[in-house]
């Protein structure tokens, strides 16, 4: 398709006051762009300005360069379907952050227009990849409260749902409970029936839901819209076509046998909170040792939780559970419930439940560190507590001790097993064999037929929970089209799990919808482009298949990759991974970014130029924010937006330095335990690749400090001017890049 260009320069929002627009118009004439293609408007986003562009598009313009504000604003106004549109940001990056009417400021704007022009020249309008025979059906794994809610929510919107439950009946963890905390009002009755049977019946009788009980997922193949899921159960094995999956497999209680210091396993009358539910279910609360009805029950909170030796996290529902169980005890008005806590954590409206419980004369609470549990004779126990609110160390006699144990996600055991296996494989065949022989294989959940492994990959700091980026996108996992809900995702109570299930069900539906339109799912949930490798030049190095954060790329026996477009999130990590630079998107490629860098005018005299590649998810909006506050940034820096720093290719740095660019900066998200990367591993990968940049620079005999990678979170915009200006000052101190002269 022949490109017919239109360049539209806006004078609004201070741009006109800051720059010589006439001069800018003159220099915009380059290559295929002629004078008649360039138009200036006072307020381009006004109806008149938009009409101006639309009229041109009607007249045949199919490539628009909007020289105005950040692409993060006015995106609805400047949306022209069918027209390749590039937004050149001279408002935030120039007018708002640079000294007005300055020669260098003018040069900066000119460079941005030049880069934008090259970018559209190197781009094509993406056409979506829509696969055939897509399924609209959902698979829900797990028939507990989360799974049942997810199934009902999706089924009620008209989607067909397959629900797989490994137990012979639906209900999951909630079935084990005696009572639950009411969801609406915490006045009388303070504890209510779980009504799990009612929900189970509703699910089983729903015309849109097909329930597989005593069943499990044997194999999951394919990609969103085209999953082939093999379900095996008592009635045989069946393969169903699935659009998207909700994983609601929940958690299991922490293994209390590891809590010997709290008397578990040693004293019969030390039980877990889950065991206590069963005891309470049987009528008057009788203790295990002698069946005596108890009148003094001690609850030990954080039993194995918030403890680096056991579970480092808070399971968030044990406090409310113990307060609820204290009410079981208090059904006998002469009974006493003593609760020993580190902190009572009853978030949200549960605070009211806490207050109600606290008001009960027989619910006695104290902060304290439980030192241990010892024998008090006759089956009774002493709970030994230090640092109590009552003062010094104290012992409390109880008939029964309940340990408030936390929850462990069902994803943890498979992840640990697989990580162990990976480590053993890395050591060689013998360790691998030894590992397989010595380690009990836990129950797998998804059994994915993916190159990157059969289960969700583990993530540092996620403690085995099915998490991907908990800050922004809670239901997403690192396997596209598979959404986690409930306690498999993060510790939560039943009410939260129900909300979670609805959220995950809708994300799954959204995934089905996007796949049908050939659009990516989050975070580039508008993107029609997809990676299109020139496989003929592939050397089968497998780096793309290994590095893809979402396991989207499979490979054949020869190691040649095949891209599953519906699993792809369009982050472009494969761009940075490929040493042959064969992976490109229609509007995003190694050549395109490289050409943009080359389009920067590098003056021969002592004028500095720095290129800064910024992540579009965190660093770019942070730059926009500091621009809104009119913070000044060194005029020599040119920002280029990347989908993810994971796409960073070292050739860009080599080319830039060879061209005479004085400094090169990479601005990415935080990585590590509290990572912020929308593509999970992008900035970390960039850092890994960056570690190899020294080689390139030493070849060029340049200072290593000319190239730096910095981490910035979206809310750290206030630190950015200092970071950027300090870097620029350092580069200037080193002096100009000697390659300028060549």
């Amino acid at each position, binding site marked *: 398709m022949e490109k017919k260009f239109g360049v539209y320069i806006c004078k609004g929002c201070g741009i006109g006051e800051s720059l010589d627009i006439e001069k800018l118009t003159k220099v915009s004439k380059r290559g295929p762009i002629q004078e008649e293609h360039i138009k200036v408007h006072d307020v381009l986003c006004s109806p008149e300005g938009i009409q101006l562009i639309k009229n041109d598009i009607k007249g045949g313009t199919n490539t628009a360069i909007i020289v105005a504000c950040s692409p993060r604003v006015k995106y609805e106004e400047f949306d022209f379907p069918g027209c390749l549109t590039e937004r050149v940001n001279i408002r935030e990056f120039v007018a708002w952050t640079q000294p007005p009417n300055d020669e260098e400021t003018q040069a900066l704007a000119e460079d941005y227009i030049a880069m934008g022009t090259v970018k559209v020249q190197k781009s094509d309008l993406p056409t979506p990849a829509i696969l055939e025979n897509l399924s609209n059906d959902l698979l829900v794994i797990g028939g507990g409260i989360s799974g049942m809610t997810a199934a009902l929510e999706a089924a009620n919107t008209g989607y067909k749902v397959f629900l797989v439950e490994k137990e012979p009946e639906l209900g999951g963890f909630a079935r084990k409970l005696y009572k639950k905390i009411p969801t609406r009002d915490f006045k009388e009755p303070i504890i209510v029936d779980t009504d799990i049977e009612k929900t189970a019946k509703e699910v089983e009788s729903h015309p849109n839901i097909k329930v597989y009980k005593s069943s499990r997922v044997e194999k999951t193949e394919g990609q969103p819209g085209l999953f082939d899921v093999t379900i095996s159960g008592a009635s045989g094995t069946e393969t169903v076509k699935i659009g998207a999956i909700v994983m609601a497999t929940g958690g299991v209680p922490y293994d209390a046998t590891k809590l010997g*210091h709290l008397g578990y396993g*040693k004293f019969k009358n030390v039980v877990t909170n889950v065991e206590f539910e069963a005891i309470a279910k049987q009528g008057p609360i009788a203790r295990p040792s002698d069946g005596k009805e108890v009148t003094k029950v001690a609850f030990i909170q954080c039993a194995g939780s918030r403890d680096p030796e056991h579970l480092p996290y808070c399971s968030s529902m044990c406090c409310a559970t113990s307060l609820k169980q204290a009410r079981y005890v208090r059904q006998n008005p*002469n009974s006493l419930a*003593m609760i020993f806590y580190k902190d009572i954590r009853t978030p949200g409206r549960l605070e009211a439940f806490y207050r109600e419980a606290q008001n*009960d*004369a027989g619910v006695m609470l104290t902060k304290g560190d439980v030192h241990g549990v010892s*024998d*008090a004779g006759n089956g009774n126990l002493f709970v030994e507590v230090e640092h109590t609110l009552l003062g010094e160390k*104290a012992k409390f006699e109880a008939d029964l001790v309940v340990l408030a144990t936390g929850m462990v996600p069902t994803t943890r055991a498979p992840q640990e097993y697989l990580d162990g296996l990976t480590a053993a494989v890395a050591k060689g065949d013998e360790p691998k064999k030894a590992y397989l022989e010595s380690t009990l294989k836990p129950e797998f959940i998804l059994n994915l037929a993916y190159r990157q492994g059969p289960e969700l990959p583990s993530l540092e700091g996620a403690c085995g929970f099915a998490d991907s980026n908990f800050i922004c996108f809670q239901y997403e996992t690192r396997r596209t089209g598979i959404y986690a809900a409930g306690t498999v995702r993060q510790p939560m109570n039943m009410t939260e799990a129900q909300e979670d299930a609805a959220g995950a069900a809708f994300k799954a539906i959204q995934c089905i919808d996007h796949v049908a339109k050939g659009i990516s799912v989050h975070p580039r949930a508008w993107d029609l482009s997809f990676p299109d490798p020139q496989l003929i030049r592939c050397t089968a190095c497998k780096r793309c298949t290994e590095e893809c954060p979402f396991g989207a790329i499979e490979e054949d026996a020869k190691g040649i990759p095949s891209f599953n477009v519906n699993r792809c999130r369009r982050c472009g990590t494969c761009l940075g991974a490929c040493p042959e630079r064969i992976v490109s998107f229609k509007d995003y490629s190694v050549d395109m970014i490289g050409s943009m860098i080359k389009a920067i005018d590098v003056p021969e005299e002592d004028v500095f130029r720095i290129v800064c590649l910024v992540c579009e998810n965190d660093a770019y909006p942070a730059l926009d924010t500091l621009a809104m506050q009119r913070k000044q940034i060194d005029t020599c820096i040119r920002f280029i937006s990347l989908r993810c720093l994971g796409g960073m290719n070292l050739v860009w740095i080599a080319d830039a330095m060879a061209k005479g660019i004085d400094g090169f900066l990479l601005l990415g998200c935080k990585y590590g335990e509290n990572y912020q990367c929308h593509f999970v591993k992008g900035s970390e990968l960039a850092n890994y690749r960056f570690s190899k940049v020294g080689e390139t620079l030493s070849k060029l005999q340049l200072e290593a400090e000319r190239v730096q990678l910095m981490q910035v979170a979206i809310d750290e915009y206030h630190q950015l001017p200092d970071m950027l200006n300090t870097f620029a000052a350092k580069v200037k101190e080193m002096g100009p890049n000697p390659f300028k002269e060549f």
Partner: protein
Amino acid sequence: MAEEKIEAKTEAAAEPQVEATPAPEPFVGDIVTPDLKFVNEIMTGGGESLKKCYQCATCSVVCNLTPEDNPFPRKEMIHAQWGLKDKLFSNPDIWLCHQCGDCTAYCPRGAKPGEVLNAVRKLSIEHYAAPSFLGKMVGKPGSLVPLLAVPAVIFGIILAFLGHLNLDAIRNEAGKIAYSSLIKSYYIDGVFVPIFLFAVVSLAIGILRYWKDMKQATGAVPQGSILSAIGETIGEILTHRRFEQCNITKDRKLAHMLVLFSFAGLAITTAWAVLYLYGYEIMHAMGKTPYSWLLGPSPYPLTDPMKILANLSALGLLIGIVLVINNRLKNQEKAGKGGYYDWLLIYIIFAVMASGILAELVRLADIAVLAYAIYFVHLIVVFFLFAYAPFSKMAHMLYRATAMVFAKATNRDVELK
């Protein structure tokens, strides 16, 4: 202590720990025994907000009367929540509190520490009172009628014995209404002197028990002269210096002072009247002519200095108690309204004053039947006030004073600004 013995025994009997964990250091700590019954008693005795406390310590921060070391009322709130009666009772702190209500006003959870401590003090009086059943009865609204019935029956029997039928005809030699003509003072004193002695003995027993418990529980040894501590305490009581530390209920000082000093005035008046009557009677019995200033049986002229003091004191007490009522109602939102126990004493004092003043006015108006009826009521409420003083809030006088003396003697006192 007994608890330590139990401790040692259980520690020795403790089995070795499970193998998986290294044997921890033996744990040494007091056995704490929560008392649900006691918690319920506090909650039904005026401290129903007790359990709302979440130990933020705002109360102890705003309190101007607490020592900085181990301050109240925060620790009392957690002790009360767990029903640790002994820790609360055998401690001067519950009485060092003057129930300003500052803590209650600033409590972010509405736990009303001032009210809770008040309920604890009530239970403490009950606990130390001898005999204890009377302590329990005075604190219970249901026992009010039987308690009032006791004096009513006693004086009713006396009246029946005297056989007065025509009340209107009961006059003294001067033809005036005279209460001493209705019931001779011997009868009155025959009742009140033993009652007074009973109250003194009962209070003394309670106070001694309290002192002993405080010494034992705190382990503090009174230093220096107890007498000087008593002297300082009396000085503080007379000047009401502690009341000045309160913020929310600052105006309580005047009301309470009026009540206290009026009571003192009435005590002097009583002694004075005893002198008038028995001085006269004794001289008369000895065959001497009584001094002219010994006026003999009542009523006495309004111009008599003793009568002037009596009337001023009566008026002072009435005004004082009305101010107390007014202050409590005014501050109830912030500082708490108090419970039955508080209001019982307030209403009894009010009843004593109202009936006393009315009896005098009606006597002067010469309406005999009404006057004698009011006097009868007056006798009943005065009996109530004195006989039940060791069990009612009246006892606060001595318990608080004792706690103040103990605190001063053991350096647990707070320096007043």
